[in-house]
């Protein structure tokens, strides 16, 4: 075991923003129309990046946030709002929504795939 753990609060490489990381508002990534630069300046790691959906496409994950229950609701088969996820049983989700997995671009981006912090300005 390391004997002297370094607290992120003392780590000079951790910015003050990183010490209180926040994601993009409502998890929605900011649209950027700028395209790839060119082979001279494009990072090697992006050479085979996989294109996902357009970010201005209306998301398929419509929901209503219920402030009373503090959970998201979707419209069930009879039009009534129901909890987005069944709580105890595995299987497909009511309302046709899908679960957030790690890195599935068809879902809202899981926060762990996003940049660790976000600031518009």
């Amino acid at each position, binding site marked *: 075991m390391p004997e002297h753990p370094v*607290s992120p609060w003392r780590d000079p490489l951790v910015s003050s923003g990183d010490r209180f990381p926040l994601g993009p*508002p*409502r998890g929605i990534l900011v649209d950027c129309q700028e395209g790839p630069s060119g082979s001279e300046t494009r990072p090697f790691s992006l050479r085979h990046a*996989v294109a996902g959906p*357009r*970010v201005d496409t209306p998301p398929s994950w419509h929901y209503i946030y219920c402030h009373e229950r503090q*959970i998201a609701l979707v419209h069930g088969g009879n039009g009534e709002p129901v909890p987005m996820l069944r709580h105890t049983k595995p299987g497909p989700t009511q309302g046709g929504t899908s679960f957030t997995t790690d890195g599935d671009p068809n879902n809202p981006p899981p*926060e762990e795939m996003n940049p*660790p912090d976000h600031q518009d300005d």
Partner: protein
Amino acid sequence: MTVLILAREFDPQVDRLVEELRERDVPAFRTDLVAFPQALDLESRLGADGVDGVLKTPYRDLCLGEVRSVWYRHPSHFELPAGMSGPERRHATAEARCGFAGVLNCLDVLWVNYPGSESGAFKPRQLDVARRCGLSVPESLVTNKPDAVRDFAATVGGPLVVKALSAAMLVESGRLQTSYTRLVEPAELDDLAGVETTLHFFQQFVPKAYEARVTVVGDRVFGAAIHAGSEAARVDWRADYHALEYSLVEPPEPVVAGMLGFMRHFDLSFGAFDFVVTPDEEWVMLECNPFGAYGWLEDALDLPITSALADLLMDGGTAR
């Protein structure tokens, strides 16, 4: 006593926890910081008697002294009033950030996870700590020098992968782009243009019998073996979910001890560890995600992760 949940409104895993707590009659206060300052207020007094205060939404109040634990799950950025100038917005953002961080930092309760704990957990540092905790890790290289990549490839003597050091997603031309971990083709070693533009993360490709996602909640361990059924998934299982099958797996005891040591080092109460399990049954740690998704594995394998998380948050205490 209340569990404070700072998370986005759309987060099915949080929904599950809220429902679990409701069934246990444990009060929860869930809010997203995107509501600040339109629909979320903070009032906190600091003085001779210490720190107290209240978080207010149009729907409920929370006295900070009533907080038993906090689940910090990447809340959204503040949505400041329209019409602010750029400098005003930056100032207001910094003030809000320091104010929330400063006040909430005074809560001497369990945090899952403490803001900032993850930030020290850069991938190279994770691997170094993991190694010192007794876990096997792959040979890795961080560099912006193409020649160093070629030397590394020669040393490793097998396939390499390139993977993101930070975020795997970006938006270009209005479209989401994901840079999954991928194999470096041998021919690419002669054409490494772009490596010199920034730091890159190369690793030896570890032969896989299967991969494992091990979710650790406090000291409880939930192992899921991930069996890839396509070439893309065999390199990065996130690249092809439809080709995956899951089964329960129990990490060996030394691996569990290593993970728990790792979590202590980074002050984590929750972590999602990714391992390669080799054909020789060696467990090689790739990384730990302090905010890893787990709901789909909970569904697939009936793992009681939400329940364990509820147990942890109910127990409260001061874990950091």
